[in-house]
């Protein structure tokens, strides 16, 4: 049975700050830039925003935690956002990535708690080597990894990807199709960090290896900046400036997982599937209805896992599925039409939500998919806590 509130809420505004490797202002101001741009895009005044929500986590464990500089919490927006004098509601979540924050906003609107919700994701890029381990003491679970020279998230992803390749016969050259496709899409996205830098098959194959089988180009590009969205109820949405992107369903990964210090690929089908099954069930839609899929790519193999877990192809087949232009803008399932985190920049899944909104509202410019009535954004890896949203152009 489909969700009673299917199509009752919508995204009506998108705002982005500049994305760069080194911003000329503090992250808090980038978040305000994005928030104001989203309100302006929606055609509402800041004073009309009466609900706010984010997933504010630092870019990696051990990064700084100064509000407005290293991260941007709801406290910062309340103090500096010039929002409704008396906010009706706010929340910030610590698990399940930015779609989980988004879902909180949807639920608040469905409950009638507020009228306009601001959702944002701000990402800082600290100086120095991203996510480097610099401590000579390893406490907690890290005492079983760091003394062995394993402490960077890309190592966990590399271990999982190696096993995937072994199990299904994928080779590194197969990934070139997916990664270069994302770059071609980014070359049509002015906001993308790699907007003006093309990448071909040879460029990918010659990339510096980071942790085999992952190369530099299999890792998303860390940036600093913010993207913000405005959500409201469907009845309000109809009177605003742009066509609404209706929320048809959402899902979160909530299966019990083995507690491991490393990632494995043993249960990505079940865990990713549990998220997506909720979305299909709430929306009444399925993989064949999706005009464009925005699939998390903090590390490139996550997109493989999503393609399979969501049922866009069979288990172990994603490396074949992405070949022959099948995931290109002109293909049967355009994937990461904005360039993904790999080529637009690491907004930790917020870019995927924004692009899904653009695609179902005809606002994706040169990369617009004709007749894209439904776009799904799945954030996080299926191997981890993750969440997703399905947007449609009709309620």
């Amino acid at each position, binding site marked *: 049975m489909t969700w009673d509130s299917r199509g009752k809420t919508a995204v009506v505004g998108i705002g982005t700050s500049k994305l760069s490797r080194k911003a000329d202002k503090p992250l808090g101001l980038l978040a305000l830039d994005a928030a104001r741009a989203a309100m302006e895009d929606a055609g509402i005044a800041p004073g009309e925003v009466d609900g706010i929500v984010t997933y504010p986590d630092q870019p990696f464990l051990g990064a700084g935690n100064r509000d407005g500089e290293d991260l941007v919490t709801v406290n910062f927006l309340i103090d500096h956002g010039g929002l409704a004098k008396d906010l009706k509601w706010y929340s910030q979540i610590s698990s399940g990535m930015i779609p989980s924050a988004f879902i909180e906003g949807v639920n608040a609107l469905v409950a009638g708690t507020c009228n306009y919700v601001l959702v944002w994701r701000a990402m800082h890029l600290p100086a120095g*080597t*991203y*996510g*480097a*381990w*610099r*401590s*000579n*003491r*390893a*406490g*907690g*679970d*890290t*005492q*079983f*990894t*760091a*003394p*062995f*020279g*394993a*402490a*960077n998230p*890309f*190592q966990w992803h*590399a*271990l*999982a990807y*190696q*096993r995937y390749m*072994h199990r299904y016969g994928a080779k590194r050259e197969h990934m070139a199709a997916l990664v270069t496709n994302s770059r071609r899409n980014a070359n049509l996205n002015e906001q993308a960090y790699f907007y003006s830098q093309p990448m071909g098959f040879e460029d990918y194959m010659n990339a*510096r*290896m*980071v*942790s*085999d*089988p*992952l190369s530099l180009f299999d890792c998303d590009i860390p940036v600093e900046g913010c993207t913000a969205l405005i959500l409201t109820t469907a009845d309000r949405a109809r009177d605003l400036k742009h066509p609404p992107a209706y929320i048809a369903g959402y899902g979160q990964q909530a299966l019990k997982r*083995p*507690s*491991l*210090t*490393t990632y*494995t690929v*043993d249960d990505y089908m079940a865990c990713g599937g549990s998220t997506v099954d909720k979305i299909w069930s709430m929306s009444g839609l399925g993989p064949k209805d999706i005009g464009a899929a925005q699939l998390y790519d903090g590390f490139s193999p996550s997109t493989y896992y999503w393609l399979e877990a969501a049922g866009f192809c069979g288990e172990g087949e994603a490396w074949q599925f992405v070949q022959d232009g099948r995931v290109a803008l002109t293909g049967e399932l355009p994937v990461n039409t904005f360039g993904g985190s790999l080529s637009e920049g690491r907004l930790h899944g917020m870019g995927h939500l924004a692009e899904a909104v653009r695609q179902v509202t005809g606002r994706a410019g040169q990369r617009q998919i004709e007749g894209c009535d439904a776009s799904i954004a799945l954030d996080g890896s299926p191997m981890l806590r993750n969440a997703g949203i399905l947007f449609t152009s009709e309620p």
Partner: protein
Amino acid sequence: MADLSPRPVPAPDELTQPFWDATAAHRLEIQRCTACGYYNHPPKRLCDQCTSPDLGFVPVSGRGQVYSYTVMRQTSIAGFEDKVPYTTLLVELEEQPQLLLVSTVPGDGAGIAIGQSTELWWEPIEEGFVLPQFRPIA
């Protein structure tokens, strides 16, 4: 490069001290649930499988196989800057599926394959700690 950073040393706590006490004596012991028999690694307050608090350390065989591996090429871990490339091995112990331990093998992983059997050896490091390490065997 300037002075090399010291390699990270385990910082045991009440929960993990028995593991390191055992390795100092060249014994590999893994926390096991008294109630359901499930091995928990890293050690837990409550069993991952049945939530029982009745957990104790028991010896394991040390036999396992390569679950996965990756060749580390970045100098982004303190104390390992001069060791790249080295291979991070994920070893699955024979006692239980997904009972995984991380290990270090010098070099670029040539000849290593998933499913290969491994053997345990002991690496003394600073401050009296002894790391349980695994290497693939032919």
